[in-house]
């Protein structure tokens, strides 16, 4: 999953990280984003990852990877340890949505969250034609998807309001990684947020 799409997601995040800042990437996979933040932005990076093969790949990439399950929260991580806590295209796979968002802003000053927008027009078209969407950003069949939560930009923002989270910045991209500025909940395939308290 390293299409133009994901790189665009990473481009945005990289732009928000200042040299020397501490970043925690939740569900860091092989550490590609962290590697980039370390190499290009001079960040101090840590990742959390559950899957054995990804942990191994992250170690090979020289990443400070900590094997663990996000569903169990971030117990052990001290309050306000990180400048940014990133959850890139992973929120939809987490069962305890509110808990993980709360935990991100406990251990970090800023939460960076990206997720596929289920209300993207191509997804709506798929459902309209009677099938669950399978696309670049929702690449799984319904029976093998790791995604547990299907939600839209509007849904997410109403949760943020309910939780009292402050949206510092919202960027929306289409499935070619281009910025979407109008009708974002319809034309946007991926949403990327900076959240604070």
């Amino acid at each position, binding site marked *: 999953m390293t299409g133009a799409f994901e790189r665009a997601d990473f481009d945005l995040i990289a732009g928000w990280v200042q040299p020397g800042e*501490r970043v925690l990437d939740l569900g860091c996979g092989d550490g590609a984003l962290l590697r980039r933040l370390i190499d290009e932005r001079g960040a*101090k990076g*840590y990742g959390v990852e559950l899957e*054995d093969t990804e*942990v*191994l790949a*992250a*170690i*090979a990439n*020289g*990443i*400070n*990877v*900590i*094997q*663990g399950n996000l569903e169990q929260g971030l117990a*052990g*991580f*001290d309050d306000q*340890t990180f400048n940014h806590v990133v959850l890139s295209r992973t929120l939809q796979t987490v069962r305890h949505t509110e808990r993980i968002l709360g935990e991100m802003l406990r251990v970090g000053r800023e939460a960076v969250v990206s997720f596929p927008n289920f209300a993207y027009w191509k997804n709506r078209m798929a459902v309209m034609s009677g099938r669950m969407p399978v696309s670049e950003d929702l690449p799984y069949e319904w029976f093998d998807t790791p995604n547990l939560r299907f939600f839209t930009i509007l849904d997410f923002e109403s949760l943020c309001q309910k939780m009292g989270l402050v949206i510092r910045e919202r960027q929306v991209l289409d499935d070619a990684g281009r910025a979407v500025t109008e009708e974002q909940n319809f034309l946007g395939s991926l949403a990327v947020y900076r959240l604070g308290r």
Partner: protein
Amino acid sequence: MSGIGTVSAQLAHFSEPLRLKGGGVLPAYDLVYETYGRLNAAKSNAILVCHALSGHHHVAGQSAENPGNVGWWDNIVGPGRPLDTDRFFIVGVNNLGGCHGSTGPASTNPATGKPWGADFPVVTVEDWVDAQARLADYLGIEAWAATMGGSLGGMQAMQWTLSYPERVRHALVIAATPKLSAENIAFNDVARQAILTDPDFHGGHFYEHGVRPLRGLRLARMLGHITYLSDDQMAEKFGRRIKSGAGSYGFDVEFEIESYLRYQGDKFAGIFDANTYLRMTKALDYFDPALDYGDDLAKALARARAGFLVIGFSTDWRFSPERSREIVHALVHNGQDVAYAEIESVHGHDSFLMDDPHYHAVVATYLKRITL
């Protein structure tokens, strides 16, 4: 099959007295050690493998004197193995107070001309590391590419980063803990009581009586062994199976687990020294680097300069993964470099000795990152 073939132990003598944490002084001592692979010209490829409670210097290979005696961690050492002897120079050393050739309770006390016995001082993890540092000097190794070990060995690997921050580039801390729990200490003390109350112990001076406290040592090992395994593994390996001919409603061996533990106890009592066992368990109990830092492990670890690989095992209930994570989170708190892998394994605390492909891949991958 051993990866490195026949190996021979070597002995280093140290005549400069070693001041011990507990207050005593060892006027002179020997350390027995083995090495595998070649030290490169820059002397930058050395890895120290620290042993656990019952381990020793013979980490890998077949002893020259006894080819059937294969090192205790042979499966991880050799050409192409995680501790790749084509790339690294591996050092194994028997710790002070041991019973495999380094100066210990059975050695002669120069002051009396008799075995030290009970008078051999209690040695700590810090003391071992100090002695190992002198061995490093002796071998011309200014800084280790890595220190590593499992269990009590992992504690030494960690202590190295605190006692000699500039001399350790990486520490591999496996199936370890930042300090023992009350339950851990309780198990250790029952083991010690088994030895101390054996009539053949003679207050630790049994050598002069021509006897050994075999019953106590055997019990201590049986108890320890239970804590090294997992409930699942015991159920799978032994279950409630009864040995043939048993079912006698008596106290002879009936269940297979009894047979196994007694065998392990007998085997261990036949070769191990009771005074060494007492001291090794005390070293475990005393280990607590955070003690001098108001129980703040992060503060204690702050002076480490090494990168860390910490590994825990899912069914290890002696030093559970939670204990490994305490180390990890203290390092993260400090912004230090650490990777943590939690390995699925049925083998309990003993998992660190097993030839598990993923576990070995984690170690190999981390070590490959080290520049020489």
